[in-house]
């Protein structure tokens, strides 16, 4: 598979060079791949993602998007080509759901009738009832519904690439799980290339094809979950510790036959 997004020795610092947010990171994301970038706060993972659609300009290195240096592409045009999902949906509170979803096509000058058709398609795609949600406002929706709208908005202009910044972080576990699965299905169905930022290793392992681990601006390790579990990096082991413990406890507490063990480990 060819790399759709290629980070080459990319660096970015803030505060006049005192804070190195991203430090010499090189990474390929193949077409159709679902990459999760995992790290704690301050690891530089969000900065890395924002460099892709040029919400941030790098200090050094380059990023290629579909073979083209993204510094050579007009930033506004680039962003309209790349889907962008943020935590809590980032919906515009003064616009209806339909207006929120149709915003990027509108900016691209798509005729209103086409936008309306597209909005209905997208509502179907993210499994929201067309007639019921189209004309409502974001504050009338639940957190999960808002994030579904956020996903629909990101997909409105038919991008090949979707960037997601902690998309499901603020949702309750059930909603989060359902939404994660639904998005994963969409990713496959539409042949998207997705970069998802998360601090939750479990989520990363469950959704992504490949996981990249970042710490203090550096890329510590990357690979499939299986490859990562073989990593000798202590931090990677630490991150994998949580899902492992969770899996063991869950296995113990929820045996396949349905009878929960009494009084499990403390």
């Amino acid at each position, binding site marked *: 598979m060819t790399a759709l997004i290629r980070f080459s020795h990319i660096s970015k610092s803030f505060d006049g060079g005192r804070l190195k947010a991203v430090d010499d990171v090189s990474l390929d994301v193949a077409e159709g791949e679902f990459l999760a970038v995992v790290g704690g706060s301050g690891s530089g993972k969000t900065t890395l993602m924002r460099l892709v*659609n040029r*919400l941030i300009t790098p200090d050094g290195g380059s990023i290629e998007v579909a073979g083209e240096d993204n510094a050579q592409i007009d930033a*506004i*045009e680039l*962003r*309209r080509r790349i889907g*962008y999902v*943020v*935590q*809590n949906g*980032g*919906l*515009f*509170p*003064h616009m209806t759901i339909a207006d929120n979803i149709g*915003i*990027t096509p509108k*900016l*691209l000058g798509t005729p209103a009738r086409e936008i309306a058709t597209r909005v209905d398609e997208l509502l179907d795609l993210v499994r929201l009832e067309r007639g019921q949600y189209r004309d409502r406002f974001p504050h009338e929706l639940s957190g999960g519904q808002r994030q579904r709208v956020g996903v629909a*908005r990101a997909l409105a*202009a038919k991008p090949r690439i979707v960037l997601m910044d902690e998309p499901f972080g603020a949702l309750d576990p059930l909603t989060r799980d359902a939404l994660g699965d639904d998005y994963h299905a969409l990713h496959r169905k539409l042949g998207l290339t997705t970069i998802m930022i998360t601090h939750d290793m479990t989520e990363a392992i469950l959704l992504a094809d490949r996981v990249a681990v970042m710490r203090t601006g550096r890329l510590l390790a990357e690979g499939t979950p299986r490859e990562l579990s073989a990593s000798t990096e202590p931090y990677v082991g630490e991150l994998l510790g949580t899902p492992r413990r969770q899996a063991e406890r869950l296995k113990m507490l929820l045996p396949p036959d349905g009878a929960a063990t009494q009084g499990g480990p403390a």
Partner: protein
Amino acid sequence: MTLFNDPRWGEALGHLPDYLGSHVRVSLAALALGLAISLPLAIAARHRPVLRGALLGVASVVQTVPGLALLALFYPLLLALAALALKWFGVGFSAFGFLPAVLALALYSMLPVLRNTITGLNGVDPALTEAAQGVGMTSRQSLLMVELPLALPVMMAGIRTSAVWVIGTATLSTPIGQTSLGNYIFAGLQTQNWVLVIFGCLASAVLALAVDQLLALIETGIRLRSRIRTGIGALGLVAIVIATLAPAFSHGGARIVVGAKTFTEQYVLAALMSQRLQAAGMPATTRQGLGSSVIYDALKSGDIDVYVDYSGTLWANQFHHTDVLPREQLLAELKTTLSKSGITLFGELGFANAYALVMPRQKAEALGIKSVADLAGRAGSMTIAGDYEFFSRPEWAGLTQAYGLAFKAQRTMQPDFMYAAVSSGDVDVIAGYTSDGLIAKYDLVVLDDDKHAIPPYDAIMLLAPKHGEDEKLRAALQPLLGAIDLPLMRAANLRAAGNDATSSPESVAQWMWQSIGKK
């Protein structure tokens, strides 16, 4: 007669279309100008802390300048600009009335709009501006489609505050020649016609509340995306504008504008002159409550056509003479000086309204004081009161120099309250006006000025340059010249100082005309 069936309410109501219309026009023009300046500035300053600080600082300082002073400052400023424009481009403009009022009020309106627009824009959730960028908006699109709509409620609150301030402060534009609801308040205060004062306050309060509520309706309409609310609010504002513009169009045509300064006698004389002009078939209107120096410049530039001034005032204040000439000589000199500016000294009315030191008759007799010289010996233990300008006028300097006057204290007060104050003993001496009817009412005496420290103050009628040769106008006003002696003017002033239906300047002017006819 109760407060409610007082005929003066009806009289006040008669002026409402004119006063309210002018008030609305000047307020809305100022608000529109203020918005047109503040909004772009606020948008430009929102991400620039230094500019933001500077803007808010300047706007705050402007806010601390009293409204009246700010309005008064714009008059000489524009006068100078108008002179420059005339010199450089050959086109002058009127520095009187509307323009200075609009500029000063616009400046006054800026702080709440600037502050709330900046606060509103900076208060937009950064996650949303980032989302706006993320979906591919340019910074202009982000501003128009996301930031401004979200900041609108806060901005509207600022605009509402501005509107209320401007409508309230616009009442102070009367002294610089802009007709407003302040005309009621200034005229009422000068002639002690409290019905007028109350009427003016109520009218401007109702107007401010109405505009505030309509803006509130628009604000909630925008917030709740209710086209009906926004529409009703906007319609209401448009209705106010149309209703107040209608009378302005209906009474077009050239009118003779009679000016009046800020005291009772001037209101009465202006009413008398405009009645004479109307009787001669010339449409006339009055501009009342003009400041002493504003009124002369207004006549010179043709913003008003005729008014009554006093020889000594022009001599000392307008032309800055420090010497005092005998009466006839001073008038002759004035006539020459005025004609250089194209102004016609049409003639004397027949009385003088000089500043004079005045005290209660009983007290003066008890202390054996007949003249200012007698007073000088006792001044050290006495308090003197004068009007707003007296103590900064050259006459005061002349008096203190000539007689060596040194009072224990000096106080400034509203002219109509001085007489009561000296009568009740709150102050010992006042700088009163010789033609004031209250001198007789309170049984006061005028102290002799043996050394002629105060120049003569003959009441003289001045005509604007374009009316110098206007025979029709001259013929209409000619009968007033030499026809008003001191007892008549005093009696008229006393009538006007009353507080009933016959004390309006118009009624007093009619009474005067009848008295003149009987002579």
